[in-house]
């Protein structure tokens, strides 16, 4: 990997490193410790032996395996299609697949309810069924759809990075398409594939929004944690379950670190512009095309259903067009949209700034404790959102640091959660900057601040932006962290949408969801115009 040792530590570096270390210790390590030590041994035993907890753990394991398998598989097929076929409409296909990143994952569950619920368009209107399709089957489908775009992004980057010459060499030596795939492409892609699977597994394991909307009485750990707090004010039980949730997530995180042997976990280097590759034969191409088309139809259906739901009087009962649901945007619930924008902007900005500083001053320098800080900077990637929410709730509601009920705690929680992404992007960016530039600046007499400001910073502009935009998007669509940190007046759109769903005010819920999606799309669009850079290119820097 070649960590390049930059100049020796100067005063500026020491100052910044201490600052960053404090942030990491207070806002990453402290919440984690708080969660683990909060319950007494007795309370641990109580919560972990409850039949419902055991069922939740079982279910979580089950659904994680199921949804990860399908999401990764779907992502792989889609990515393979993009790189190894000459099918038409690839630009469109590559753009549509990114749409789900602009919405909270649980809107898929919401669309599912509209289509397959008790008053569902398909179940009731078309098939005349009475029953709804809740429970684990619905959750499995919904999670696969919600998370496979993430798998696609990572796997696509992996495939792009495979040296096409190897594949051509095999082909020229006489191997047919499938043989090349089996012996060259797949083995090379495997580590990245496993990593994608691990990342998806962590997402599914930590998924709170989809199960709470759709899984009915089928408990999984995140919904149980929520139930403990919101239903019974049982913080000890919630902490105990959160600790249980972190262990597999952390294990998966370590596993992926091992697989990549220190290479970037989430990041893709972004230098892999599409190489020319041996393509699949024509009949196979159309099979892939049908699959991709099917996916596009799925995604479009999800959003189409939501938009339709916003303009129908009472879904499933009264199909007359109506604008009445638009009122929600100007009422009490609509205020949350402003908060979402505000908090996510600063969370993304904070995460990106931290990432740039950490990449240069921690990753790029050598000092005692560097490995530890480097690890902690990546740690939030292993922490399920709901665990972080509980941790912040426990750590910052009492002296010495009281942030409960403020906007600050929400912003900090989201910011910390997004640090790893930007950090990965910036360290990868740093790898590509030779140390010669820095040395040249120093030789010319620049002081440390100038070296950082004028040579390093400009070259890290792209990863910084990537971290900022991805941080913004992930923050604005987050539910699991914010659900425990918001307070009346400081609430965000995702929580408001969930509330409305739980009160069966579906018309208002979808209206708010569509407005949130529109807002995210607008921000991304503005960024694209201002920076002239394709979203996809930036996405190459982040999972």
């Amino acid at each position, binding site marked *: 990997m070649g960590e390049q040792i930059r100049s020796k530590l100067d005063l500026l570096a020491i100052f910044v490193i201490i600052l960053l270390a404090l942030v990491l210790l207070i806002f990453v390590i402290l919440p984690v410790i708080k969660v683990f030590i909060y319950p007494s041994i007795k309370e641990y035993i109580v919560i972990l032996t409850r039949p419902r907890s055991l069922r939740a753990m079982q279910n979580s394991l089950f659904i994680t395996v199921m949804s990860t398998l399908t999401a990764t598989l779907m992502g792989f097929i889609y990515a393979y299609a993009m790189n190894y076929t000459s099918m038409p409409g690839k630009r469109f296909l590559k753009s549509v697949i990114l749409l789900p990143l602009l919405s909270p994952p649980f809107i898929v569950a919401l669309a599912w309810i509209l289509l397959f*619920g*008790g*008053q569902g368009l398909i179940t009731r209107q078309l098939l005349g069924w*009475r*029953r*709804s399709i809740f429970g684990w089957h619905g959750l499995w489908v919904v999670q696969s759809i919600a998370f496979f775009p993430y798998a696609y992004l990572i796997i696509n980057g992996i495939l792009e990075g495979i040296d096409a010459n190897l594949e051509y060499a095999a082909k020229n030596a006489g191997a047919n398409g499938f043989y090349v795939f089996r012996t060259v492409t797949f083995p090379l892609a495997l580590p990245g594939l496993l990593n994608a699977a691990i990342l998806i597994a962590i997402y599914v394991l930590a998924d709170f929004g989809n199960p709470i909307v759709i899984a009915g009485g089928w408990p999984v750990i995140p919904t149980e944690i929520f139930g403990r707090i*919101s*239903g019974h*004010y049982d913080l000890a039980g919630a902490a105990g379950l959160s600790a249980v949730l972190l262990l597999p997530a952390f294990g998966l995180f370590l596993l992926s670190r091992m697989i990549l042997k220190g290479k970037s976990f989430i990041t893709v280097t972004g230098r892999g512009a599409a190489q020319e590759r041996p393509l699949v034969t024509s009949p196979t191409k159309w099979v892939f095309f049908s699959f991709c088309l099917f996916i596009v139809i799925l995604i479009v259906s999800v959003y189409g259903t939501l938009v339709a739901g916003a303009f129908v009087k*009472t879904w499933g*009962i*009264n199909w007359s067009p109506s604008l009445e649901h638009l*009122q*929600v945007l100007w*009422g*009490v*619930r609509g205020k949350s949209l*402003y908060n979402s*924008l*505000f908090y996510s*902007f*600063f969370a993304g*900005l904070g995460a990106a700034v931290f990432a740039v500083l950490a990449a240069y001053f921690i990753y790029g320098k050598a000092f005692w404790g560097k490995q530890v800080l480097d690890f902690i900077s990546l740690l939030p990637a292993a922490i399920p959102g709901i665990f972080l929410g509980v941790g912040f709730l426990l750590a910052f509601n009492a002296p010495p640091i009281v942030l409960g*009920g403020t906007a600050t705690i929400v912003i900090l929680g989201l910011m910390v959660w997004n640090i790893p992404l930007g950090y990965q992007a910036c360290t990868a960016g740093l790898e590509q900057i030779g140390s010669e530039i820095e040395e040249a600046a120093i030789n010319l007499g620049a002081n440390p601040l100038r070296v950082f400001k*004028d040579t390093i*910073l*400009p070259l890290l*502009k792209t990863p910084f*932006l990537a971290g900022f935009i991805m941080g913004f998007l992930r923050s604005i669509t987050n539910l699991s962290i914010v659900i425990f940190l918001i*307070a*009346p*007046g*400081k609430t965000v759109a995702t929580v408001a949408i969930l*509330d*409305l769903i739980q*009160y*069966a*005010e579906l018309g*208002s819920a979808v209206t708010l969801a569509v407005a949130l999606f529109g807002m995210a799309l607008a921000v991304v669009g503005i960024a694209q115009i*201002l*920076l002239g850079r394709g979203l996809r290119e930036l996405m190459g820097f982040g999972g």
Partner: protein
Amino acid sequence: MKTQLRMLVIGILIVSVITGIGGLTISSAYPQRMTLYAALDEPTLEALISKFEEDTGISVDLWRGGAGEVAARIRAEAAAPKGDVFIGGSVDVHGDLALEGLLAKTAPENAKLIPEPYKDPEGYWYGWYLGVLGLVLNTELFEKEMEGIPRPVSWDELLRPEWKGKVSTSGPHTSGGAYIFLVTQIFRFEKYAPFFGIPKGKAREAGEEAAFAWFKAFKENVKVFTIKATEPIVLTAMGETIVGMSWAHDILVYVEKGYPVELIVPPDTGFEIGGASVIAGGPNPEAAKMFLNFVLSKEAQEINATVGAKRYPVTPGVVSPPGAPSFESFSLVPYDREWAIANKARLLDKWDQVIGG
């Protein structure tokens, strides 16, 4: 490269400043804020809040939950209350909180509009609407799956074995309505006790015995005991259950929306007085008092009666919910509210032991 970077930094600074100023402007446009904890439906809340904000310029932050959830939250925050006013939920729930010292004593001007029986003589809570318990019946499913069974026009009809797994109701620990339902059955059996030769002195005891026996049989038919009082309506409207027990005014919302459901108000039903109170030690006591006063006004009661779930006003002369039966037409059990409040803990304990739902 450098100019681009500079532009980028400037751009980010500008956006930060704009959003920052925007935030400050919005919060200074409303110099006062107020945090409302409410157990009412969305449309009613939106209407009440926007009227209040219009009239006073005070910005209202809302947290909505079932009455039981709101009470739990107020209790959890006792050391550092974050809410200012609690509206919705039966006055029994408010009365409980008052006994625990969690509510503030107030004397709003509009208290004079509220008839005596509907407000706390000590001044800790005020009633401002009435609601009756009823049944929501999914007519579509009833016709399809319950052929030959008579419409459940009385409470006892629900004990028929054919209703097994088809009934939903809420749990008395978390739902104020469910607790009122429990004591309603006690008072109902107490009312008819003389017919069975039970002397007046023993009537309530006997009523309690009979009520718990009734609930034991009832439990066999219940598919799910929900947390909130309104959840059985959603379940029934969606077809998960065929009949549910909940508040008549909430049921009517679903009837109006066009769901295949109908409202039945059985005789000897219970009713609630909906409460409003100021939370002790809340962050904005002045704004809280203003909001409480607003809620008791004729205007607020009219909004409550005409928007969203239509609840009956307590002040004579305020318009009655359009399209709903008059309040006087309901046959109510003689309800001993003080006894209900005083015996709540004991009865809930008994519920856990005998019914366990």
